[in-house]
């Protein structure tokens, strides 16, 4: 049995999600840099930001069910070589 704080999972998720958000931000800057004068680019950029916001909001609301102060435990398979200290 492995036990770890639920917060570790949260931080790991923040790290990966943060990288993706950074990528999204760079895409957005790139799009606005070359297409800022085009109405359609501004509109689609707005749509893109809205989409990212919706995903973040949905994720946050779904994760409220998780108690982040608790610990998660993962049962290890009963494999014989673990008993010999390997």
């Amino acid at each position, binding site marked *: 049995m492995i036990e770890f704080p639920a917060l570790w999972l949260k931080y790991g*998720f923040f790290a990966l999600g943060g990288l*993706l958000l950074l990528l*999204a931000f760079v895409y957005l800057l790139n799009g606005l840099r070359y297409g800022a004068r085009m109405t359609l680019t501004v509109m689609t950029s707005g749509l893109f930001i809205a989409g990212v916001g919706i995903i973040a909001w949905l994720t946050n609301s779904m994760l409220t069910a998780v*108690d982040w102060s608790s610990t998660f435990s993962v049962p290890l398979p009963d494999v014989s070589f673990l008993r010999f200290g390997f």
Partner: protein
Amino acid sequence: MPHDIDFPGRQSDEHVVIVLHRHWFIFVRSVATLVLLGGAPVVVMLVWSRLTDWQLADGSLGYALLVMAGALYYLFLWILIYGYWLDYYLDTFIITNKRVVDIEQAGLFGRTVAEERLYRIQDVTSDTKGILATSLRYGNVYVQTAGKTERFIFEQVPHPELVARSILDLTDKIDDRLERPDGDSLPAENPKPLSPATRSGTVGKLRQ
């Protein structure tokens, strides 16, 4: 149709004749693939939960992992869709009364702007290959030039034969103007040999 598009090095007396993007189907096809990829996990989960008595308790480790993985997955797909859009919309082929400009957005930090004067264009070819391209009327336009960029390729543009015809018409106009004795816009690096009479007439005009 007037175009208010701006591009690097646009001159004050230069007006845009045609602005081309890839055919809309190219973008829709890419996005459709991503939409299918987005729908696949939902379908798998629905089928799996119907076939088995699999359920996740709210707040459990499995639930948290599933929500997080789903969020990352859909965020990634959303970024890809936006990337495809940028690639589609910022890849632009512009034909003005003076030159052709090919603006290519390659990924995040790559952008190529190639241009060539109309009088350097030697040959324009269009092709349409495949069932979809033929029925939706899109294809490639190849512009052979005498410049450094020997061949411009406008890929997957709508109505390639009309585009090719328009470019040829514009180059014909330029050629006519160059060959006329009172032509007033002979470029210094004109590749076409002119008759002595034409040359003297042009020089005379330029000297005035």
